């Protein structure tokens, strides 16, 4: 007999194999998931989940696809949370001191409770990245928030109503576009191609017979 545990989906008890994740346990219980399931491998943040272990008063948040079931787990999924994304034109905004104030002024109401960090399913220091955003230190905010999967668990716990993943995303786009150093070799190559410098060479290789291509391929030099 498999090792089974009792879990409660939306308060209803099911006995499921202990080595399943919350997501596969729900399917084992008979659920056909439509919401709350995207990549199934911890990248998309679709499966935000809140749970409490019977007898423990701490509420925990997790990704259902990345978390193993436990005995006495009371589970509720959060397939949607009304985070508030502000819209902007990336070509018009600039990484200025005021931009966060304009787009996400509520970050300045953070009371420093750290609930967001405790809730983060990726183990990020969320309060810290919000603090960086307050100071318009976009690079640091981008770095600290980089692994965010946008599950929104942090936002569900925030007394200030902050939409953390959206703040991190804005900081990253600003950093990627305006702050990170420009890439000279990329610019040059695009220009070379636009000037038609490879046109002839590419036509030539396209015309080559397969046998010649095989020879070229099998003897090509590989960069160390």
């Amino acid at each position, binding site marked *: 007999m498999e090792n089974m545990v009792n879990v409660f989906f939306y308060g209803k008890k099911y006995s499921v194999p202990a080595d399943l994740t919350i997501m596969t346990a729900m399917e084992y*219980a008979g659920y056909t998931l439509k919401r709350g399931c*995207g990549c199934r491998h911890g990248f998309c943040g679709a499966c935000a989940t809140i749970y409490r272990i019977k007898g423990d008063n701490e509420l925990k948040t997790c990704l259902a696809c990345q978390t193993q079931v436990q005995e006495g787990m009371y589970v509720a999924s959060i397939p949607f949370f009304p985070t508030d994304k502000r819209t902007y034109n990336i070509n018009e905004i600039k990484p200025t001191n005021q931009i966060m104030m304009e787009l996400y002024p509520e970050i300045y109401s953070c009371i420093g409770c750290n609930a967001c960090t405790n809730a983060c399913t990726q183990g990020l220091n969320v309060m810290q990245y919000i603090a960086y955003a307050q100071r318009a230190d976009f690079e640091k905010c981008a770095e600290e928030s*980089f692994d965010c999967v946008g599950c929104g668990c942090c936002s569900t716990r925030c007394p200030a109503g902050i939409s953390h993943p959206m703040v991190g995303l804005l900081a990253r786009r600003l950093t990627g576009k305006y702050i990170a150093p420009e890439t000279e070799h*990329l610019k040059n190559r*695009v220009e070379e191609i636009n000037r038609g410098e490879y046109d002839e060479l590419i036509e030539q290789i396209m015309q080559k017979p397969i046998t010649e291509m*095989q020879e070229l*391929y*099998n003897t*090509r030099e590989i960069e160390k």
Partner: protein
Amino acid sequence: MYTPYPENMMESIKKVEASRQARMATEPRRLTADEKDNLLKEFHPDYKPEAFAEIKVGPNKGEKAPLELANMLHSTSRICGENIDLTKVDYDVDVLVIGGGGAGSSCAIEAHEAGANVMIVTKLRIGDANTMMAEGGIQAADKENDSPVQHYLDCFGGGHFAAKPELVKKLVMEAPDAIKWLNELGVEFDKEEDGTMITTHGGGTSRKRMHAAKDYSGAEIMRTLRDEVINRGIPVVEFTSAVELIKDDKGQVAGAVLLNMETGDYMVARAKTVVIATGGAGRMHYQGFPTSNHYGATADGLVLGYRAGAKLLYQDSIQYHPTGAIYPSQILGALVTEKVRSVGAQLVNGEGEAYIHPLETRDVNASGVIRECAEGRGVDVPGGAKGVWLDTPMIEILGGEGTIEKRIPAMFRMYMNYGIDMRKVPILIYPTLHYQNGGLEIGGDGFTKNIENLLVAGEAVGGIHGRNRLMGNSLLDIIVFGRNAGKAAAKKSQEVTLGELTLSHIEDYAKELKAAGVETNEVSPLLLPKYARHER
């Protein structure tokens, strides 16, 4: 001692550790062309005749497809017997994009930029897609020692000389501009302080041209594209699948029948041009393989495109990624990015031997893993499966302490969730169903060759990568061909006048199936895999 694995695995790890120093001193030999061929023929899943069936109807009649795909092509349309009123149009647009992944999103952005009235419909949420999961990176020949021609050679040779030259040309020539476009949208690529892109090898590359954003490359691209789609106010209808294409009385494509995934209601979208960007097929679980793909990767676009008469190409060619997680069971099938090998980890069998070069093309490396396991040099996993090691501690020795957390944080996190510290112990892998090499055939302009107003972009296309795709060329193709499709679809939509809408091609296809005597008792497209267990 640190023992995160069962006893038999820990025993094998001792051998891996014992041989590590010697292995690190020499690079495993690359296989010759003949050796590769033989390995593929003997062990690659594509060479298993019993896993394929003949397609009985339609433009590829007589050709082979994986059993599960053939089955879908032979199944009844979901809308057979449904009363769909085509005179009641729910959405009326210039460009309809089916699928909110990377290809669909970049397509929509460019169509919008071109001034078209464009809309995305997508099965789950926008970004719940294979694009979000890509870890390793994206290729582009933008360094001085590299050129689009070299990139062409790698792509064409890596794909066994079967790719369509006009598509490969576009892929490699427009690659640097794709990176530039993404960068200007705010995608944070890994760079040196002077702006030089940090690039590495991928399997089958002859130059270091893999650009990355840590090991969240696809996520970084996808979330940026999604943000841009929303900023532009492009309508995105989520939890809504396209289930069939609609044509008009002139025989051109004119929209799609949509299904609200939550309510089960059907809707009609009319469009002057339609772009299929529905992605891959991992959740079809060909040959019973686990998969790295997202929940909605069920080859829908291939099925609905085929039913409308579009041609498939290389539908029998599937990519099994050599390194999927095989232990612990909670992450079965999850991808262990190729970057783990790019930054130094070797493939090592149960005896501690580095039996192959870790950066051969994917099909070769996957066949190698299958061979080692089939011939008794694998490591047993509870439940009956086998795997071989990916020697991750080498990465820290080569690159210095902290390299793993810095370069492959997603991998580190995934394993740490289950108490496995890959800095200290190797990880166990086996091939996972990863990518659909084939798909719907297009020309260089992005349109299908025989159905008017129908375009395809992204993983749903066949022919860009021939019979094997190199790492980093797919993220690239979804941007290059996604953008082009958006521009072309917007332009074409200005010239199109639609006639009366019809679904007669669905009836015709059903008749063909009947005449061919095929009956599966199933409906298609699949939309979602059937994972729910029902006791009775």
